[in-house]
Structures are given as structure tokens and as C-alpha cells.
């Protein structure tokens, strides 16, 4: 579904975030990307969503080089990916309901569908009681779950979650993982970036490890340890 060929990313300020990364995400798969912070996990997710372009190499999405996507097709391309941002990226002046509804409005859903789907997905992440709150009134973990709800509500074919458990306690983290597994079992590919090794190790899913922007382990299955 997604393939990266020899991808190198050097930011404008000269920082080398990824070096010669080649990897793939298969259809219907649950894939972990691990690595210490600063390893380049977030950069990788940005490249797949085309928030950034690779300095060298190619990112192929469903057989198409995404660097070649024309501006007019960009919107449609991005709607196929549900993104849970590490920094949430919620609109501060919109309520939780409106933030989630935004993804559906962007997809052109009629209002009566939106009124059904938004409460349903918020219920799924356990935030139904917060529909009328604003992001600033929520904890980090709650905002993370709103970001997840927004990513899921459109039923995208690929969900990318960047450190989605970073601000959650063990209980909520487990609940969130359960949710991601659930949507994965419904056929959605999931790419989860995390540095929480305990989760990676207990689930036994395919894992790609990054260190200082380089692939250090490929095709491992939950056996990764730092420094190994």
C-alpha cells in the first residue's frame, strides 16, 4: 500500500532526520515504528501524508509517487489517510464535536450523517461527555483521543498514529490500542509510531525500528530492545 524507496529527509535547517530508508506498509497490516525520540518517526509520518517532501528517494502510495500528486488531487489523497498527530492539531476555537465533524465536512458528508457519526466515534474513544468542550479545556490525553476520533470518523484506508499513547495512562493506553486493533481487524491498515516498547513487545506485530534516521531493524516482531 505504501512503499518508501531510499528516502532521505534533510530539513531546511540542515538537520538530517531520515537517511536512506526503504520500507513498506502492506494492506490491512498493523505496523509499529519504534525508536528513541528524535529518531525520525514523526518525519516519516509527515512524508507519507505529504506534509513534507523527501529530499531524496520516493514515497509510493497505491502505486503512485506522491510527490507527483497535483494540487487539485491533494485534498482527495489526504482524505484517504487518517492522521493522529503527536501534537493533536485540534482547532482551538472549535468544540470537540466540531473538530471531529470537520473531517466529515471536508469529505462532503451531509449534516444528518455528521450528527450520527460524530457522537458514535466520540463514544468509541470515551469522550461523548465532552462534545461541547473546547480543546483547551481537555487534558493532553483527552485531546489525543479526539485527534484519534477525527482520524477514524471518515473510515480511511490507512490510519497513521504518531505516539498516540504518549500522554495516556496505562488504562487509557490499553483502551486506545484495543481500538486501533479493532479498526485494523475491520480492514484498515494501521501505522503506529511509538517509543513505548512494552506495547510493541506484547502485541507481536511487525516492527520497524529507526535510530538517528536510519533503519536499524526490519521485519522484527516485537523483539526489539534499545541498544540491541
Amino acid at each position: 500500500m505504501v512503499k518508501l524507496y531510499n528516502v532521505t529527509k534533510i530539513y531546511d535547517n540542515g538537520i538530517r532526520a531520515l537517511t536512506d530508508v526503504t520500507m513498506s506498509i502492506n494492506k490491512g497490516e498493523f505496523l509499529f515504528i519504534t525508536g528513541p525520540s528524535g529518531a525520525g518517526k514523526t518525519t516519516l509520518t509527515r512524508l507519507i501524508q505529504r506534509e513534507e517532501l523527501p529530499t531524496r528517494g520516493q514515497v509510493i502510495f497505491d502505486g503512485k509517487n506522491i510527490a507527483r500528486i497535483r494540487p487539485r488531487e491533494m485534498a482527495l489523497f489526504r482524505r484517504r489517510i487518517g492522521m493522529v498527530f503527536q501534537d493533536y492539531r485540534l482547532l482551538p476555537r472549535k468544540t470537540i464535536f466540531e473538530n471531529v465533524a470537520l473531517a466529515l465536512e471536508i469529505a462532503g458528508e451531509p449534516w444528518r450523517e455528521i450528527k450520527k457519526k460524530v457522537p458514535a466515534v466520540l463514544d468509541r474513544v470515551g469522550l461523548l461527555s465532552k462534545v461541547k468542550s473546547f480543546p483547551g479545556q481537555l487534558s493532553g490525553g483527552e485531546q489525543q483521543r479526539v485527534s484519534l476520533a477525527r482520524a477514524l470518523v471518515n473510515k480511511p484506508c490507512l490510519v497513521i498514529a504518531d505516539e498516540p499513547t504518549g500522554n495516556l495512562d496505562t488504562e487509557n493506553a490499553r483502551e486506545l490500542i484495543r481500538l486501533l486493533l479493532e479498526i485494523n481487524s475491520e480492514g484498515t491498515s494501521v501505522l503506529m509510531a511509538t517509543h513505548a516498547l512494552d506495547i510493541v513487545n506484547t502485541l507481536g506485530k511487525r516492527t520497524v525500528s529507526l535510530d538517528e534516521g536510519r533503519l536499524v531493524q526490519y521485519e522484527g516482531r516485537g523483539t526489539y530492545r534499545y541498544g540491541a
Partner: protein
Amino acid sequence: MALRVLWRWWREALLALFRNGWLALSAIGMVLVSLLILGFVCLLALNAAHVSRIVEEGIEVSVFVDEELAPDLVVQLGKELGRIEGVTGVTFIPKEQALEKLKEDLGERSGLLTGLEDDNPLPDAFRLKPEDASLAPAIARQAEALPGVEKVRYGEGVVEKLLSLTNWVRVAAVGLVVIFGLAAMFLTMTTIRLSIISRQEEIGIMKLLGATNWFVRGPFILEGIIIGSAGAMLAAGFLYWGYSSLVEQIGRATFVFIQPVAGSEVALPMFGSLLACGVLLGALASTLSVHRFLTV
């Protein structure tokens, strides 16, 4: 375009205005102040042009007829004067009427003229109305050349000075309107741009979620239009109120010879043009400001 899209634009625009209450109010205030100043300058310019026109309309060419000329030839002369290019009206003033007028003008001292009725020394005259005040000298020259014309007067010297003054007033008025128009444009655009820059992150997020440019742009443009037209309507209201009471004051004063343009006469054009200014400026400012943040 689907009705649903328009409906969403309106909802988003009104919601944003409401939630950014103070920012929206200050933007409306800014538009109000700049259009108020612009409108004031326009009214000033309008009246300057109005007064200039009235002054110029007062300019006439007087043609005095040779006393010896036979009455039927006088009629003939009148027709010929009417054929001169640039003459829009010819009025015959017989010498009796001229004397009456002179008596009136002298008032109490009209006794000086008693006894002149039988031996009127004043000539018959024609008064020519020029199409444009600047044509007066040329008309005078052509009239002078006609047979049976004794002499021609149009206020030589004074007319030329007056014309250069009214022309200068008109140029100055247009210049002021242009300068203040640009200032109002700059102020309005800057205000609206600032309110959009504070939301550039939201624009980026929407684009990352797969929003099209029009999805993002639409509500911002409507928001700009609402701010622009609200400011414009308030400005027009204040100006109308201020101007009509000023005109009323002037109307009561006895020493004013030329009345300003009536308030009722400026109301509609002023309201219309200010509103058009507000709507255009608001839409333009939003479109340009959002544009910078759409390339995510």
C-alpha cells in the same frame, strides 16, 4: 455550487465572528473609521465640485446691440447668436427692461434715473448662456465679429481666474479622495489580514485533513465581506446623520449664497458606494490573506 456548501460558509463565518468577538468588533471599527474618513473627504469633494459648477453656471456673455440697428435685424442677430457653437441659450433684454433692472439695483437712489424713461441711454442686449464656462471667451470673440454688435462683455480676466480656481479645486478634490481611498484600503486590508494570520495554523490543519482551497477560503471571504459591509453601513449611517444636520444648519444661516448638496441627494449614492467599497475590500483582503497559507 451546492446549497450545503454556501450554508456551511455562512455558519462558519458567523461562528468565527462570534467566537472572536473582540477581534471582529475591532476589525469592524477599523473599517468604520477608515470609511468614515473617506466618506467625509468624498462629501467635501462633492460640495467643492458642486460650488464650482454653480459659480461657473453664473457665467454669461452679454452682447450689446448697436442702437442704429433696425428691429427686424435685431431679431435676425438673435438667431445668429444662437447659432454660435457652444451657446445653449439666448435671452433678449430690451433696453426698457435693462433700465428697470438698474433702478431695482440702485434702490433708494433710483431717483437719479428719473426722466430717462423717454430717452433711454441703455442699449438692447442679448444674454448668451455658454455650454461650458471655459467657452465664454471664444463665444465672445465670435459674437463681436457679427454686424450690429456694439460690444461684448463676459467678465474678462475675472472669468479666467475663476476657471483656474474651480479647476484646481476639482483636481485637489479628486487627489484627496484617491489618497484617502488608498489609506482606507490599506487599513482595512491590514486589519482583516491580522485576523487571518492569527488563524494560519487552523488553515494548515484543515489542508492536512484534506480540505480543498475553497473549503478553507469560503468562510474567510464571507467573514471579510460581513466585516466590510458592517463597517460600511455604520459609516454611511453616521455620515448621513452628520451631514444632513450640517446642511440643515447651513440652510438656516442667511449669509450663505450657495447651498451645499442636499442630504437626501447624497444618501443613496453614498450608501451604495460605501457598501460596495466595504464588500470589495473585505472580500479582497480575505482572499489575498488566506492565499498565503493555503500552500500546505
